[in-house]
């Protein structure tokens, strides 16, 4: 590989950051939204706006703004990559400080998975069991593992679960699902 090829490869690698991916993902959502808006019917009828006019106009303006954001991200990244390559051709500074998967940190992935599991369990096994397990696992996630302070985390999980029950069911009289009511 020649040294002249390095900056180009590097800039392509740099272009694929969250600055680009977030507007790109929003652009896909907006295109789907625009297609659905078009399917609602013509934007004007007898000189009046219909239900599809406003969503179509919003989607078009949104797409223009997203294209601007993506172009800006590509330009910015390419410029940064070029500067980076000139300053330090052998540098590898792009490696983030923490591991990222699809833009999510391990901690964030953990919270999402735990919360998704909690939502599934909430209806199935009721408030008490699901909340206790969820809180205990969240305590471990935010506290850096189960081995340290495991007893205090266990107590915290019990207290938070009971406090949540008292707050919602007793104070605010919200009927929460229970294992025996399933």
């Amino acid at each position, binding site marked *: 590989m020649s040294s002249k090829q390095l900056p180009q490869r590097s800039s392509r690698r740099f272009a694929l950051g969250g600055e680009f991916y*977030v507007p790109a993902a929003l652009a896909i959502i907006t295109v789907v939204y625009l297609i659905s808006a078009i399917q609602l019917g013509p934007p004007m009828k007898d000189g*009046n706006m219909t239900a599809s006019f406003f969503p179509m106009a919003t989607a078009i303006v949104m797409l223009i703004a997203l294209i601007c954001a993506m172009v800006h991200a590509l330009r910015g990244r390419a410029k940064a990559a070029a500067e980076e390559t000139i300053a330090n051709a052998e540098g590898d500074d792009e490696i983030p400080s923490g591991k990222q998967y699809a833009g999510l940190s391990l901690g964030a992935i953990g919270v999402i998975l735990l919360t998704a599991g909690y*939502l599934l369990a909430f209806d199935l096994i009721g408030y008490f069991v699901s909340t206790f397990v969820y809180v205990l696992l969240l305590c471990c996630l935010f506290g850096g593992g189960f081995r340290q302070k495991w007893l205090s985390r266990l107590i915290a999980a019990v207290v938070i679960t009971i406090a949540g029950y008292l707050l919602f069911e007793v104070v605010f009289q919200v009927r929460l699902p229970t294992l025996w009511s399933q």
Partner: protein
Amino acid sequence: MDSITGLLGGFAALANPETLLYMVGGFLIGTFFGAVPGLTSVLAIALLLPLTYSLDVTTALVACASIFMAGMCSGSITATTINIPGAPSSMMTALEGYPMQQRGEGAKALGHAALGSMIGGSLGALLLMVMAPLAADVALLIRTPGKFSLIAFALIVIIISQRGSITKGMIATLFGVMIATIGIDVVQPLARFTFGTSVLVQGIDMMPLIIGTFAISELLVQADSRSSRTVDPSKIQAAKVRRRDFIPPLSEVREIGVMRYLKSTVIGYAVGILPGAGGSMAAFVSYAESMRSSKHPERYGKGNPEGIAAAECANNSMCGGAFVPMLTFGIPGDPTTAIVLGVLVINGLQPGPQFMTQQLGLIAPMFASLFVSALILIPLTLYLLGPYFLRIVSIRRDVLYSSIAIVALVGSYVATYSTFQMALALVFGVLAYFLRKQKYPTVCLLLGFVLGPSLEEYCRRSLSINDGNPLIFLTSPDSLFFIALTMVFFYFMVIRKPKNNGLGAPPA
């Protein structure tokens, strides 16, 4: 006369033990959330929103007002003592408070912050009581095309106030507008963007959006942190605060001057009325003006009580101003008033020009709560709890965020007794996490969502009045006024940017 009686009735309502309990409880919660770095009073009010289903509307509004006021002033505690603003609105306080803390005058700095907050907050609440009925009278003159232009003005100002990221502000706002179009059309009985699912026919509720945007996304952000406590305990021992030092010397208060307090109050109140500005902007503008007009501008940045007084006075008087457009026009300018609007909507109330006269009995206690929180609870809380605040805000993150997760998720369940709302909160939380990581203002998302349906409705109604001719927006005087106002704001905020005064860019 009726309005004076109604407003006085608001103070009488606070004598109800239950209402008083919620006001004091709300104030303490707001103080805690405002003081803990990473948490905000917006999150506290967002967590309170689901509980309003079971609460009396007046009680809920009283609690919201006291949380709002407490959140604005309590950020100064950690800003002064450990140089970490508990809330964004306390950034300017940190500039002056922390140098004072380093000189051993931290308690005095907190005293100045409390005095400024007390004066600004209570005068702001009084201005709200005086100005809101007048603004409501003006609001009665605005017709449908004018309402459209007013909402468009609000949205455009919210977007252009996102300095350095106007495109991102625009994207977030439009995305909020798009989410709001899901469900039944605002004019015709037609379901839009349901993608064949019956659960989306009713549209997206405000609650999962708020919980997701402000609570779940915060959990995801905080999951990246490795520290075990919200505030490092070693910093607490280095920053001892004594109760007896809290009262600022009269000589320093005189030096700051009555005019500076009043001017900062008016600045904060006026900034509060503007859409999208918020407490950070109010504190910044007031601080900059105070430095400009000071006899000793060279003392700024080195621990000057004038700067603390100006910033804290303004960010607390902003609370009063922020309620004016929400109550009189139904247009919230910041996330807190947007959530308060949600509380009203949940209870079947729609703010507007006649809301002040027709529902004064319901909202007068909220005004009274703002006033009493500022005048009595701010100094009282600081005096009683001040020495212990740093210990209180340094709590275990695992316990704090697990508790927030439960209140947020189970709170989402309350609205419809279905886990669908909880799932929506998670989806919006993940979305907001990505937006926040790329510095998209999630406040714009919420305000776009809140204002989007009214924008569409007034646009379509205006055009149907004039057979689809858009010239009605230029021929209608009220609409023309707001279009001209939009252009003026655009000129001053985008084309001719404010001069650099050495403080850097104002906060978004």
